[in-house]
């Protein structure tokens, strides 16, 4: 187990190194305006001096090595255009907690709503609750999120009598962003849990349980649910991360001071270092999410043994 774990972590690290290198090299292809606060006013000489000072004229391999050295010291460079000459790390450290708080709340809501919904859809398969739920899932999956988010903001804010934009001190202001962020995950969890439970409910152990006279409620929660939930566990960390990512749109819509909104801002301002830092952060988080998913899976389901699998996926 620990040997596999070691290999698996090593793989993730390797992937991460590849991703960081690719992103870094790609970002160097951007126009150089993105490294100066007031590019238009600078003379040609000043630009050259500035570029040299930032090490941008070195050959690419040297730049990459320098970047990794910086990275190991926890230095992501300076923001140039979003806020002049402020370390990127300082800017991010105030934004991350907001995003994480929002994301956790939304995952909590989607689990609390999505799982019972899927369970009841499986239980009343073909009845009106199932049909209603399927309709909801089709709608959420087919209509672009960017579209229904708008309408939630538009009509939700008049309904709840809250301002359009976010205000962290008012609890009611959290409701709409969290609901918007949860809808996709609710549909996802409900759809898959329903399918797995329907598959599972024809198996022999379920028949045995009902033959023994176990109450239907108990069969659903104790027997079927536990088995049907296993495949979903692997997705949990990723869905948490997707929620934080999905928040790019939500945060910027409600002007929530988090990471996602920040990404949109720095893209509009062409701040290369900031874009690079946030993209790398999201990529890292993605890699960790998949890793955690694989590990969680083995913890939940004792039948899955990683020993026989050998290295890699």
């Amino acid at each position, binding site marked *: 187990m620990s040997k596999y774990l070691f290999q698996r972590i090593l793989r993730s690290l390797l992937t991460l190194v590849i991703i960081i290198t690719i992103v870094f090299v790609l970002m160097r292809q951007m126009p150089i305006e993105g490294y100066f606060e007031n590019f238009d006013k600078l003379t040609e000489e000043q630009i050259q001096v500035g570029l040299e000072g930032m090490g941008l004229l070195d050959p690419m391999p040297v730049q990459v090595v320098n970047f990794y050295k910086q990275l190991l010291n926890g230095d992501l460079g300076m923001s140039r255009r979003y806020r002049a000459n402020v370390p990127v790390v300082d800017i991010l450290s105030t934004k991350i907690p907001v995003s994480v708080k929002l994301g956790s709340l939304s995952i909590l809501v989607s689990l609390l709503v999505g799982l019972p919904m899927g369970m009841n859809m499986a239980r009343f398969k073909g009845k009106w609750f199932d049909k209603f739920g399927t309709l909801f899932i089709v709608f959420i999956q087919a209509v672009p999120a960017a579209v229904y988010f708008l309408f939630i903001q538009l009509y939700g804010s008049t309904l709840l009598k809250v301002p359009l934009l976010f205000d962290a001190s008012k609890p009611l202001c959290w409701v709409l962003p969290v609901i918007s962020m949860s809808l996709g995950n609710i549909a996802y969890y409900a759809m898959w849990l329903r399918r797995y439970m329907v598959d599972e409910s024809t198996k022999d152990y379920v028949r045995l349980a009902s033959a023994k006279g176990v109450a239907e409620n108990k069969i659903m929660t104790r027997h079927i649910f536990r088995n049907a939930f296993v495949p979903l566990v692997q997705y949990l960390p990723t869905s948490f991360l997707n929620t934080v990512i999905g928040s790019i749109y939500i945060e910027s819509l409600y002007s929530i001071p988090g990471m996602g909104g920040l990404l949109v801002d720095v893209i509009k301002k062409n701040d290369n270092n900031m874009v690079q830092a946030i993209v790398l952060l999201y990529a890292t988080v*993605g890699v960790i999410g998949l890793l955690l998913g694989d590990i969680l899976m083995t913890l939940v389901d004792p039948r899955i043994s990683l020993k026989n699998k050998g290295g890699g996926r």
Partner: protein
Amino acid sequence: MAALRNRLSSKLEENVNTYTENMSEEELFSFAEYKEENTEKTGYSNYSYWRSTLQSFCKNKVAVFLVFVVLGILLFTFIQPLLPSQYDPNAINNDASGLQYRNIAPGAQFWFGTNSIGQDLWARIWAGTRNSLFIGISVACIEAFVGIIAGVLWGYVRKLDWIFTEIYNVLDNIPNTIILILVSYILKPSVKTLIFAMCLTGWIQMARFIRNQVIIIRDREYNLASRCVGSSTPKIIVRNLLPYLVSVIMLRMALSIPAAIGNEVFITYIGLGLPTNIPSLGGLINDGRALMMSPSLRYQLIFPTIVVSIVTISFYIIGNAFSDAADPKNHI
């Protein structure tokens, strides 16, 4: 059921006996012709995969209706500019005194109203639908094309396995949205950029799926048999493997169209979308969003959203219905 089978087989025997009695050796060993009345007797059927698919698809009335809706919309986006007295989607319309027709509510002159600089929304919506559908359909086709080729190579050629697996690891680990944003940020905004950025992540999912199926199916008995009688690898792939995957390929293609339209809306919102002289549904929704706070101007948001919703829901339902119909397990 058993009785029926007995009856059929006894009939079959009788049939074969009367048929072969008076035949010469040569006749016995040549191909028989297909005759409608003989099929009744023996239970032989001229089963055609595509006809059965079409038949079971037609049973789903909603999906058939939506096919007509989508085809109608697609056709109309091309017909609309040819109709009499239409405005140009990019023209800024002025009234007699030279002032722009700003934010005119829907009416007789401008059917869907005008936007904040006096462009006709009706023309813009249809031009935008055309562009968005073009992006969506191109993405779906390119993804399928590249994905199928890469997937087959990945599954069939062992030496390439590690390269593809490595690419997959990298692409799968970064959230798709981030790749999309990064690529659109680095390249200049244009239709080509958008299509490229969206295809960059989509093909690998298709390829991985096909690779898994290829590995499962490639050593089944019928493929072994096919190889034994000397079929070449390309023939095995095209005739034996791909038909098995049609239903899933079609499903993925149908679903990637609404996804592409959704991504376009998102990318436009971030500010990396198409320039305003190329109208698109994403751009129109984004323009409408800026004005959504004043109820009298909300029509500028609502019309494009209705079109987007109809198109995306239609493709979603058609895709699912078709993949059910194309699955041979659901035939007969």
